[in-house]
């Protein structure tokens, strides 16, 4: 199969959990990477080394282990900046997850004054395929400021319906926030094109790259966005850390988000002044050991090469789409092929006639195959396709064709189990 990572079996050994055996002796077939990715040993080891030998608080501690810890933490910021091709390390803000990054933007806009302020008569534009984490913050912003929330609809194929873009993006539009890659449909959106249009009408552009950064090379400048957010646990890093990249000029204009230690310049009881970016947006003790893990994770991905990761994902996804197409009564929600440009995310959501996704995933699980069943935090997109929930298989750089075969076999077995074939 073209595009697969070379020596996949060797690479899989980097991930301890992949050698686990589950109930009844079935090996783990992990097809839930869009939910969270597994962690390579180097990431775990780096975290252990930090906790066992270099643990100290950062910035404020000036002793030797404090200096080691601060250097490790800030080095992680450098690594992430390089990974994203960010113009400046100061534009890389560590958050607790992707959701916090999106909320950070929505929240500070609620309090922003001047040019950036959002209020009655203004419009916020999202899309119908967003993860709840890129819907609810904007609903709250709209509700709290009196602005109006609007959205791009979806075509039958699971692409954004851009037919009314001229109506949606207008001089009232203050923010456009959209996902780069859908976590449910696998659609890859034309982020640059939309960003350019949004900028023409003077709107800010926020890109939820939670599913993009794990799967493809991401260049924040080339994306055209003002903000790009992702989450550590989906890029082979730990939970407890996310990243929000923002353009310096915009970040500097925004008021602070959370208040506390590290984000201040000086504090008096009457009044405080705030630190420069990125610290202005990082209140309290940051996720230190998590940043260390994330830094190693992006290095791990870079060593493999994000182009190669993308090619692998495309190959596996294409193979999976073929396999699924062979199953009677199975409908894929979203693009059914990888397409010419190789532009399709690795998440494949589907339904099987007459069997509820819960039941599908339960039977698969009894054979060691881990998929997700439910609305995948994308209820509106499910509603758009007339379903309440779906089963989702999602691959990553460690996924093998044999695992896809196990999935397809498992689905045939499921149909037999429920007497649907």
């Amino acid at each position: 199969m073209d595009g697969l990572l070379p020596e996949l079996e060797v690479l899989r050994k980097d991930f301890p959990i992949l050698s686990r055996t589950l109930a009844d002796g079935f090996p783990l077939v992990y097809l839930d990477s869009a939910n969270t990715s597994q962690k390579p040993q180097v990431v775990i080891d780096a975290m252990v080394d930090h906790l066992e030998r270099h643990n100290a608080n950062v910035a404020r501690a000036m002793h030797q282990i404090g200096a080691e810890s601060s250097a490790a933490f800030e080095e992680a910021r450098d690594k992430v900046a390089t990974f994203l091709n960010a113009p400046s390390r100061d534009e890389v803000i560590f958050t607790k997850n992707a959701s916090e990054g999106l909320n950070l933007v929505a929240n500070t806009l609620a309090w922003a004054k001047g040019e950036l302020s959002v209020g009655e008569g203004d419009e916020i534009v999202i899309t119908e395929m967003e993860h709840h984490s890129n819907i609810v913050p904007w609903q709250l912003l709209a509700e709290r400021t009196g602005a109006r929330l609007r959205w791009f609809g979806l075509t039958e194929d699971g692409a954004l319906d851009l037919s009314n873009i001229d109506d949606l993006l207008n001089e009232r539009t203050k923010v456009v926030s959209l996902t780069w890659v859908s976590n449910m449909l696998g659609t890859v959106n034309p982020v640059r094109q939309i960003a350019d249009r949004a900028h023409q009408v003077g709107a800010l552009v926020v890109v939820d790259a939670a599913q993009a950064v794990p799967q493809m090379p991401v260049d924040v400048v080339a994306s055209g966005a003002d903000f790009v957010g992702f989450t550590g646990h989906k890029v082979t890093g730990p939970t407890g850390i996310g990243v929000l990249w923002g353009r310096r000029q915009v970040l500097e204009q925004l008021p602070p988000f959370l208040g506390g230690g590290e984000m201040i310049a000086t504090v008096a009881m009457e009044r405080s002044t705030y630190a420069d970016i990125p610290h202005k947006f990082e209140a309290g003790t940051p996720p230190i050991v998590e940043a260390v893990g994330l830094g190693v994770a992006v290095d791990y991905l870079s060593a493999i090469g994000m182009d190669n990761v993308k090619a692998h994902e495309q190959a596996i996804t294409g193979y999976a789409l073929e396999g699924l197409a062979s199953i009677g009564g199975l409908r894929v929600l979203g693009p059914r092929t990888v397409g010419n440009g190789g532009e399709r995310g690795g998440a494949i959501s589907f339904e099987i006639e007459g069997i509820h996704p819960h039941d599908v995933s339960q039977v698969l699980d009894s054979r060691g195959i881990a998929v997700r069943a439910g609305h995948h935090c994308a209820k509106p997109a499910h509603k758009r396709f007339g379903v309440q929930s779906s089963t989702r298989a999602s691959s990553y750089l460690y996924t093998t064709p044999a695992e896809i075969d196990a999935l397809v076999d498992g689905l045939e077995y499921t149909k037999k189990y429920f007497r649907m074939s």
Partner: protein
Amino acid sequence: MTTQNLDSLYQEIILDHYKNPLHAGLREPFEAEVHHVNPTCGDEVTLRVHLSGSDDRAVIDDVSYDAEGCSISQAATSVMSDLVIGKTVPEALALHEQFLDMMQGRGGVEPDEEALEDGVAFAGVAKFPARVKCALLSWMAWKDATSRIIGELGNKEQP
């Protein structure tokens, strides 16, 4: 999780109720209608309760519903409605309590087949913590609807 276990989850009785649910559909008359969801999976049920009166000795004349969900939650709705229709509210509450005990016992509670009838088929579900919620969704909905008609119920809370 063994195949035997999978079969203990998907008992024939459950699959039968799933394919041929009893009392399905929304009917009149009713005194209360509620809508409950399981936020993790999106399963939903709209449920109506019709009582013969409004004191706490009232008889449950009808439970009607429109439910979307997995085999477990659909079958549980069917079994629940069939169990409680015709009973008094205190009798139904007692059944709910027994059913809860069984579901929360992680497979260790011996159910009373006399009382729970087809409900005992759910004993195997208790061994699948992620699915327990599916089996309880419609019971919670029924209880909520009933308490809207006759006020706070004395039944023990689901934790």
